[in-house]
């Protein structure tokens, strides 16, 4: 039982997960789950109570029981007491103050990271303002490598997302070429297939592999099919670069995705065996998003942001190349409007970086959410300021397969220009060698004789 007083009213919270949920800035998904504070004042009382809790509480009280959840097991079995001992005297509030202080830099955060659990990070994020989430995340550089180097300070990358409603190979290729001419695609060229079967996904992979080889593009590809499909593709010697999977923060959520930690380990081992990276071997690609646990009726009374942070414990076990939250995709019953989507994106990016993940963001919304392109422009600027590793690049923001709006190729040029950011170094060199980008990072019109312009005509 946790107690707190605000404005002469006494509040009690029956357990840690209830306290966490009630301390969370309001969002529709927690309301749908019946977990939100009953009033603004109760929310602040919960935040005050949470801020006064020692971080060590999170090592004593599990939000989801160890016996029934393999992610709780993973979190506790891999927790490093020695790293934690350096901050073990902190309360959650003191942890926030410490993270924001001048002396806390990347090196110190790296040192204590093995002592952090996702629940501790989620807790501190709940009492942080948006600017705090931006400032602390911007201190952290998480660099990963496969065929290029993603996440360096001063760099900003994109996943080129050339989806097509029927997986038409020429249609996909047309969008890829468009994106490359706009300097997109350094994080990955990643396709959500309309059909998740072997023949179809293999055909897309082969096309991507051929395109990347023919034009010596220093990037990696991914077909975002189910893990089990990718494993079969690897078995059939298809050219798999990054292995994709959606993951959640509870065992039951992952059950609903048809995966578990053992299967992820098998996929990781299969990836290790093929060694297709040239500058590094980070080859897992994970997508997450607040609300997936509630949507699968698998949240066990834990708020959606804390469930999300727990998914990052799953991700960090497998040294991923890329992780992104698909923040606004899930719809208004989980994140109602631009304000809630923005807050969730900042939380996810902060929590991911604190957990040591190469965090990107699908800055996106659906047409039934109370959000529009201006909300996404705002969030894009915030993500640039926070040092996000990558965003999506979709032709004209309009994903014609998934029917939602993400960031466009133009948006990537905008954010690079505003924050003086460059693509991944290998990819930048490639763009410059082609004459598509000048030394100031400004995109140039391609020479009409360039073979890529002829690629689909031949």
């Amino acid at each position, binding site marked *: 039982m946790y107690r707190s007083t605000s404005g002469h009213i006494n509040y009690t919270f029956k357990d840690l997960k209830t306290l966490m949920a009630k301390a969370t800035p309001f969002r529709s998904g927690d309301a749908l789950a019946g977990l939100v504070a009953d009033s603004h004042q109760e929310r602040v009382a919960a935040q005050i109570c949470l801020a006064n809790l020692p971080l060590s509480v999170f090592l004593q009280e599990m939000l989801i029981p160890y016996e029934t959840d393999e992610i709780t097991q993973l979190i506790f079995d891999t927790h490093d007491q020695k790293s934690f001992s350096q901050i073990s005297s902190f309360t959650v509030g003191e942890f926030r103050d410490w993270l924001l202080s001048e002396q806390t830099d990347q090196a110190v955060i790296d040192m204590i990271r093995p002592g952090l659990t996702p629940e501790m990070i989620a807790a501190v994020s709940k009492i942080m303002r948006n600017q705090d989430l931006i400032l602390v995340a911007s201190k952290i550089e998480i660099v990963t490598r496969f065929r290029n180097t993603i996440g360096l300070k001063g760099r900003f990358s994109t996943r080129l997302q050339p989806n097509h409603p029927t997986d038409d190979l020429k249609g996909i290729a*047309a969008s890829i070429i*468009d994106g490359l001419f706009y300097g997109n695609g350094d994080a990955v060229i990643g396709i959500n297939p309309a059909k998740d079967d072997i023949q179809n996904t293999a055909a897309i992979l082969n096309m991507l592999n051929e395109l990347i080889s023919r034009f010596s593009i220093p990037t990696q590809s991914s077909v975002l099919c189910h893990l089990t499909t990718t494993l079969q593709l690897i078995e059939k010697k298809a050219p798999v670069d990054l292995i994709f999977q959606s993951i959640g923060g509870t065992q039951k959520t992952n059950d609903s995705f048809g995966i578990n930690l053992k299967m992820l380990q098998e996929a990781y081992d299969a990836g290790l065996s093929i060694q297709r990276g040239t500058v590094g071997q980070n080859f897992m690609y994970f997508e997450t998003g607040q609300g997936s646990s509630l949507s699968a009726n698998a949240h066990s009374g834990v708020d959606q942001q804390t469930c999300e942070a727990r998914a990052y414990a799953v991700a960090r076990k497998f040294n991923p190349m890329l992780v992104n939250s698909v923040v606004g995709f899930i719809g208004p019953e989980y994140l109602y409007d631009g304000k809630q989507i923005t807050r969730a994106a900042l939380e996810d990016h902060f929590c991911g970086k604190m957990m040591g993940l190469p965090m990107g963001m699908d800055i996106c919304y659906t047409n039934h959410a109370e959000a529009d392109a201006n909300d996404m422009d705002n969030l894009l600027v915030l993500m640039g300021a926070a040092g996000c590793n990558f965003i999506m690049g979709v032709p*004209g923001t309009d994903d014609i397969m998934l029917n939602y709006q993400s960031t466009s190729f133009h948006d990537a040029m905008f954010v690079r220009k505003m924050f003086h950011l460059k693509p991944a170094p290998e990819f930048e060199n490639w763009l410059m060698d082609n004459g598509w980008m000048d030394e100031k990072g400004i995109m140039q019109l391609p020479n009409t004789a360039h073979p890529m312009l002829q690629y689909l005509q031949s």
Partner: protein
Amino acid sequence: MIEKKISKDAWEILRQYTDARIALGRTGSSLSTQNILSLNEAHAQARDSIYKHFDKNSIEQSLLQLHHEVFLLNSKVRDKKEFLLRPDLGRRLCDDSITVIQKANIKKAFDVCISVSDGLSATAVNSHAIPFIGHLLKKLIDANLSIAPICLIENGRVAISDEIGSLLKAKVSIILIGERPGLSSSDSMGVYLTYHPKVGNTDEQRNCVSNIRLGGMPFEEAAREIFILTAASIRLNMGGTLLKNSLSITDNQ
């Protein structure tokens, strides 16, 4: 005179391969005024399709002309905002609507019941429900399948077809529903089929044909596919993933 500065893209020819918004050109690194306005227009159409009036009466009139009885029903949802925030309420009929069905005092069971709901795009069902139902009814009648009165439901989610199907004692419950509107398709209709409908069924127990619209899946083809699934579902006593798998095994043989 200052020169206008929109750069066109040399690869506009690639637009023949995809409906994606490629080769848009740019001014500096930004989209041209024309492109911004066309995106705004598409977004406006998608937004309006969600809040558009579900024209139940006109659909009812058309169905009566096809000599088909109609029930006008509501989910437990009171308005569109609640519809968006409370999917659980959109999956259940309101008490008055349950009474409407019970009062009809239908004794017999049916092979098929058909429902229509606005869902997330009233535009979709306002214009596509009737042509689709026309094709589907013909095939169902030709196959001697019995059809329950058609239910038109305001603010329904897919799973409301479970409750309706069980109240009407139907073997298969079919629902036509407005899909989440995309920027390039604000009028997409989805059709979901559930074998042995009962409250609490989950999505893997359903079969679906989506993207039904002009320029998408044609009405007649969609109706044929739903008819084949319906007939197979009744014949094999199964639905959803099980049905899909057993049909694809048959296809491969």
